[in-house]
């Protein structure tokens, strides 16, 4: 049975199509694996009964020759996606036992294509965090550990449960969302592949909103090919989201074998940080050599406003969050704490319902939007955002097809190790990924090696708007050289 959970999504798809295996046995193998891995806390809700009934329906469709592109594939869904009739909390106390009466567009497209839901995965509360430690359900333990050490490590965040579930072989792929790095950073920490597509590629309808101008859904998977397969089902136009692009979705899997010969790859000099661990520098250099050997041309480029992306993000994202999270008022859904009047009820509900990180961000967002401070903070940050995007546009106009950077400034770290005294220490995790959200571009994190303690490290490729295909071609080229990274089970 364990053998079935070690398949990639593409391998499982092919074996299901050949009727080598049934969707039910594939699902059952994952249900058993999930039960055995509860100590990871990757899932906040397991849905074995629903999984079994969906798998049986898949087997029936396969028998009739009506299989969809993801028929019978067990997937996990980040708890930020509304799932009809299945508790959805964004891992916040304030959503309590919220049970949506509707399905998010992205997840509905996965079910349309035949996928099987095995459960809802843990994440930082409202996706605010880089270590999955702000979840109301408690932290996720990474399936990875330092060599010879039992120290529990973070899987990254905010999509920490999704990344851990894929890395620990508890599903064949998982949905995730990325506002500042929440797909790519946990993918890099767990040796998995994560792509944040171009803003507007996936519908945001039915995804719990954090910062609407930055949020984007994408998959976390074991391989680049699996990410290509899964994104094709997740993406596409949606009349229910006006920011979702009316652009047809290409066959991303077809980009897998495509040669990268002649592609111009920008190496942005501003991503070389002072005090960056030599291992990160080394893996980046290695990535450059792999792409060069595959026929790509490397060019030094400059993105001069890079260092301002993270501070601008910590104005724009909290501002949008303070507005989006105003809906949690104790009236329409979720937690209500009684008060002496309606304002007192609002204040008590929100005080008790939001965790420390969410409260901090809502308050800073409220401040930067308040009268007298709007111009100095919010408006200035939006202007800086224009400059960040312009940096990328100028490189692309000069003929650069994509950029190669490290995915994170370090490998995974211990639970409780960062951000205790100063929140900014945790925020620095997203220094390489946040620029991509600010500019609305696609970015993929691909595992590229390990550090001296055996922990995975990832590289990031950044593409032109709506050119995810080039990222899949380049990602596949790196993957071919770097190989795959699988955590040794200890759980």
């Amino acid at each position, binding site marked *: 049975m364990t053998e079935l959970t070690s398949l990639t999504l593409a391998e499982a798809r092919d074996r299901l199509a050949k009727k080598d295996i049934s969707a039910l046995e594939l699902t059952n193998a994952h249900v058993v694996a999930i039960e055995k891995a509860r100590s990871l806390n990757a899932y906040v809700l397991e849905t074995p009964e629903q999984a079994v009934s969906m798998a049986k329906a898949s087997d029936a469709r396969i028998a009739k020759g009506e299989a969809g592109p993801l028929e019978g594939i067990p997937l996990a869904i980040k708890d930020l996606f509304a799932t009809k009739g299945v508790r959805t909390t964004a891992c916040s106390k304030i959503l309590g036992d*919220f*049970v949506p*009466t*509707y399905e998010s567009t992205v997840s509905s497209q996965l079910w349309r294509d035949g996928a099987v839901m095995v459960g809802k995965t843990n994440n930082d509360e409202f996706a605010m965090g880089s270590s999955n430690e702000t979840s109301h359900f408690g932290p996720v333990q990474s399936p990875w550990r330092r060599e010879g050490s039992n120290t529990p490590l973070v899987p990254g965040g905010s999509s920490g449960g999704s990344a851990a579930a894929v890395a620990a072989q508890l599903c064949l792929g998982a949905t995730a969302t990325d506002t500042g790095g929440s797909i790519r950073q946990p993918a890099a920490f767990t040796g998995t592949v994560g792509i944040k597509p*171009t*803003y*507007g590629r996936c519908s945001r309808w039915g995804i719990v909103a954090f910062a609407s*101008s*930055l949020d984007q859904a994408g998959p976390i998977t074991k391989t680049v090919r699996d990410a290509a397969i899964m994104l094709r089902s997740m993406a596409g136009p949606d*009349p229910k989201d*006006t920011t979702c*692009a*009316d652009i047809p979705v290409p066959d991303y899997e077809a980009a897998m074998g495509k040669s990268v010969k002649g592609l111009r790859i920008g190496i942005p000099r501003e991503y070389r940080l002072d005090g960056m661990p030599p291992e990160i520098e080394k893996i980046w250099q290695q990535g450059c050599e792999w792409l060069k050997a595959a026929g790509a041309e490397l060019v030094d480029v400059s993105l001069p406003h890079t*260092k*301002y992306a*993270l*501070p*601008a993000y*910590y*104005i724009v994202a909290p501002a949008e969050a303070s507005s989006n999270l105003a809906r949690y*008022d*104790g*009236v*329409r*859904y*979720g937690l*209500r704490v*009684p008060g*002496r*009047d*309606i*304002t*007192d*009820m*609002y*204040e*008590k509900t*929100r*005080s008790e319902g*939001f965790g420390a990180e969410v409260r*901090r961000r*809502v*308050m*800073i967002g*409220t*401040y930067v939007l*308040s009268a007298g*401070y709007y111009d100095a*903070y919010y408006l*200035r*940050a*939006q*202007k*800086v*955002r*224009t*400059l960040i995007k312009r940096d990328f546009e100028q490189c692309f106009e000069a003929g650069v097809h994509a950029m190669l950077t490290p995915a994170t400034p370090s490998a995974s770290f211990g639970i409780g190790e960062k951000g205790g005294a100063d*929140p900014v220490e945790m925020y620095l995790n997203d220094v390489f990924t946040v620029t991509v959200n600010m*500019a609305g571009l696609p970015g993929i994190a691909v595992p590229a090696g390990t550090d001296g303690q055996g922990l995975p490290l990832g590289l990031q490729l950044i593409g032109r*708007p709506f050119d995810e295909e080039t990222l899949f071609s380049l990602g596949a080229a790196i993957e071919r050289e770097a190989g795959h990274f699988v955590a040794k089970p200890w759980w």
Partner: protein
Amino acid sequence: MSVDAQTVRRIARLARIAVAEDEVEHLQGELNAMLAFVEQLSEVNVDGVEPMTSVTPMAMRMRADDVTDGENAEAVLANAPQSDDGYYMVPKVIE
């Protein structure tokens, strides 16, 4: 710029989040750490730069002004902490 204790209380009020008196000092420290971090934006020359309003160039999609949804009060109220006869229930707001 930094915030004082009085401003922390004012922000909490605007955000409709109850903050106990003994939490103010701690929150003030956290908010000031964030404000100190974003302070570096003041060194960027933004003269003549348009603030971003849409990250990807797109025209707002229009649709006919028709009713496309509704008649599902039960689903809308399904998660309400308190509801009665098709209405949300809240503490008295008008004396």
